[in-house]
């Protein structure tokens, strides 16, 4: 592998990521399954980096799941997204920060459509106005929230309490990065580093001391695939895709997987349990699973936040060995205790990571 070859590609795919003043749109999946991630993204940006992030409680789902599930037409989703833009316009924000990769893909698709077919933009303005009486400005930039963490990765590194290294040996952790398909495969120029060799997570991991694994099925889909997942009988395809990835990364003995898409994080985490149930196979060391973390969680760990506050215990694959390796002292007994000492609900089917 020639690192300069990748740098060459990364240099070609540099997108504009604004410095401040973000209009934040949440992700259905991330806020439900990885609530700590969104909470800590805001906390890191506002408190650790001192940025202005605006969030409007009136913003809704982008309807991407319905769109990819063939129940929401393109005109409808354009109008829903236009409403978000209207909220941003009304609040005086021109930079959208999107938590969900599916949403990010939809925003990219809509912006590209408006660029190449201006009449669709006009039609959307009309539809939005008729439906809500709102008007909007097309935003200056859209960023996925991983883009923003990527932009401030060095700053985070400077404030780091822990690094992605084995605290005992000083060796870098081996990290698998997984990029959501809709982040840049459709429009390479919208992603940091393009579609073939995206840099967005690689940049974070390397800045925080970890080593990236380039394994053969790196580009492969996590297995989410809306249509595959939504129909129960088709979930075998989804599961098969995930297994293909795990089998491909297994020989490298990764310490963790980092993903920028909430759907990917969820499926790569949950399917490890399902595969174990069906085939009795796990892919991590010593019969354990491989922890799958969001980049917000990883950034939170690096900055020294409490893993249980970040919500790592609510992943199927638990991360105690990873935390121990990083030298983070986390009391397993406190995993499911609330701040006031009362017991939190404990999920079933956890597997060791």
């Amino acid at each position, binding site marked *: 592998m020639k690192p300069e070859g990748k740098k060459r590609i990364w240099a070609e795919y540099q997108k504009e990521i604004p410095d401040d003043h973000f209009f934040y749109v949440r992700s259905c999946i991330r806020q439900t399954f990885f609530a700590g991630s969104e909470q800590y993204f805001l906390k890191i940006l506002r408190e650790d980096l001192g940025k202005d992030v605006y969030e409007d409680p009136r913003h809704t789902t982008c309807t991407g799941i319905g769109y990819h599930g063939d129940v929401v037409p393109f005109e409808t989703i354009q109008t829903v997204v236009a409403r978000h833009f209207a909220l941003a316009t009304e609040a005086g924000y021109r930079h959208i920060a999107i938590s969900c990769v599916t949403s990010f893909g939809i925003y990219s698709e809509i912006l590209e459509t408006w660029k190449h077919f201006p009449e669709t933009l006009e039609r959307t303005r009309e539809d939005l106005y008729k439906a809500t009486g709102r008007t909007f400005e097309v935003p200056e930039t859209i960023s996925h929230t991983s883009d923003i963490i990527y932009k401030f990765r060095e700053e985070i590194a400077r404030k780091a309490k822990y690094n992605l290294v084995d605290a005992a040996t000083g060796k870098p952790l081996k990290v698998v990065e997984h990029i959501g398909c809709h982040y840049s495969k459709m429009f390479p120029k919208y992603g940091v580093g393009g579609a073939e060799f995206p840099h967005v997570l690689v940049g974070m991991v390397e800045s925080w001391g970890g080593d990236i694994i380039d394994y053969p099925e790196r580009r492969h889909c996590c297995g989410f695939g809306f249509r595959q997942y939504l129909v*129960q009988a088709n*979930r075998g395809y989804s599961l098969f895709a995930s297994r293909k990835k795990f089998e491909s990364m297994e020989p490298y003995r990764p310490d963790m997987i980092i993903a920028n898409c909430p759907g990917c994080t969820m499926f790569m985490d949950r399917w490890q349990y399902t595969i174990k149930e069906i085939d009795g196979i796990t892919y991590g060391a010593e019969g354990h699973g491989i922890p799958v973390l969001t980049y917000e969680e990883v950034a939170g760990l690096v900055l020294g936040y409490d893993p249980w506050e970040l919500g790592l215990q609510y992943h199927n694959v638990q991360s105690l060995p990873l935390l121990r390796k990083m030298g983070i002292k986390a009391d397993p007994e406190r995993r499911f205790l609330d701040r006031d000492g009362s017991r939190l609900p404990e999920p079933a089917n956890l597997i060791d990571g």
Partner: protein
Amino acid sequence: MMSATGANKFGFAINRSRMIDYDSSDRKVREYITSREPSFRLCFACGGCTATCTAGQHTSFNLRRMNTYIRRGEIEPLREEVTRCMLCGKCLLVCPRGVNTRNVVAVAAEAIRKLERNEL
């Protein structure tokens, strides 16, 4: 393939790969055929044999595809495929590359038999 618990619990099983994994495929049959019928290499997949095939009028027997499978080391689909040919030899007269097609089938069947007896 899948445990009963898995199927009952989730209502679906893990799909099987359709991918030909050349590195884990079995090329013994190919080598056996190529060494006994070197003209086998010459096929360029025009499909003439399949178009004229007597057995192909009655079944899905496809010599062109069978050749491809042999080359890739895909033995499973071969087992049944070889039994369908009538060895009539029409394909021989059609082949533009002079592949001894009839013997390819005969040798392939022989190879499969040997494979089943672990003699390959």
